[in-house]
């Protein structure tokens, strides 16, 4: 499970980055490191660290996580940031990482909690 990106279904909402301005950052494919933690009765993952493409959305993580946890489609799965709120599923990891990544042991990591029941209102 070193590269989740290959497995994640491509999101059609994320189109290849178009050049907005000459000064824009080169569209180099960036990766985001995610650390997952279960809440409540949600099963623990063997591998808690995942690497995803920055253009992927939270919805694609939700899909992959369902597979890893063997959750049927109609079972609910909730994803939280900092045990505080559930970000919009169409948010990209680029935006999530820019807003909510934390630095632990030098590397920037996006910590996401998952639950099979609503945990924070």
């Amino acid at each position, binding site marked *: 499970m070193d590269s989740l990106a290959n497995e994640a279904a491509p*999101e*059609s*909402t*994320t*189109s290849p*980055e*178009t050049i*907005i*301005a000459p*000064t*824009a*950052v080169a569209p180099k494919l*960036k990766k985001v490191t995610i650390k997952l933690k279960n809440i409540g009765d949600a099963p623990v993952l063997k591998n808690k660290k995942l690497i995803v493409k920055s*253009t992927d*959305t939270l919805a694609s993580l939700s899909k992959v996580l369902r597979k890893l946890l063997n959750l049927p489609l109609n079972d609910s799965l909730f994803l939280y*940031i*900092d045990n*505080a*709120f*559930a*970000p*919009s*599923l*169409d*948010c*990209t990891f*680029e*935006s*999530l*990482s*820019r*807003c909510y*990544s934390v630095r632990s042991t030098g590397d*920037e990591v996006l910590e996401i909690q998952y639950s099979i029941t609503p945990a*924070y*209102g």
Partner: protein
Amino acid sequence: MDYEVSRKVWESQVPVQFTLQAGGPLGDPLPFYTMLPRFTYLALALPKALSSFNRRDSGDPILSEKVWLEVNGSPVKMYVPIGVIYDQANLLENDAILEISVKTTQPPETFQMVDPDMVKAMFMQTVKEADYLKTKSDITNSMMVDEMPQLWRSITNNNFDEYWTMVQKLMDPKDGKDFTHVPLRVYVKNQPFKQALITLKHPNGSLRTIGEAVSDVLQLSPSSEASTPTSESSASSGATTSSTSPNSEERRLISHGIDIPAHTPLIFASKNLSYPDNFVHIVIASN
């Protein structure tokens, strides 16, 4: 907060047309026309459109869980404020009608049907996210259990007075503290929205403008630290240079159907031009 500005923003509406393409022996029903507040959601507006379609004498009623919605040939997000969808559809110049196609075919994978309960839950999480950015969740944590549902009710009932009472609690913290970061989403055509950590002020204490904030979110400023995108935008000491980049002059910042002057202080935009979800939604248009 400015009562008059907030009230004007609340009262703005957009013309919307729903058409049903169901085929069948009766042909398609007449389109359903309506004016919708910019702050509301398609998830809330759809039932009314469907009941208009279902007023016909015969034929099976169209159920909301069996349809999907399209704008300009693409599946539409039912949990994005209608005003943002309208501004993205590029209809501003001639006050055109937002045309929503209601389809009964197999929905594409990218479409998500959102019912009123789901959009309520999503809305509340977005308000929480906004508060996390503004106050590290201080305000929402101290709110009473029924206050968030009350904010939602003000939307479903189109009740400005109720909204005004609730939104002041979220926007004007009692302790008078500044927002840590400003909840801002920027929409560039055919791209997912962008969001970043944006502070109210520059390191030297001067107020950040909405134009500078948008440049920071889009990482257009040459001084923004592209190599470390998670670093706070306040780190870019020469942020004022962003307003002089050639790109930002042709760029238009649209919200609530109006051109927001780039020099508008970010704090004013956040307090007065946010949608009820407490985010400022800026759609980028070019001349």
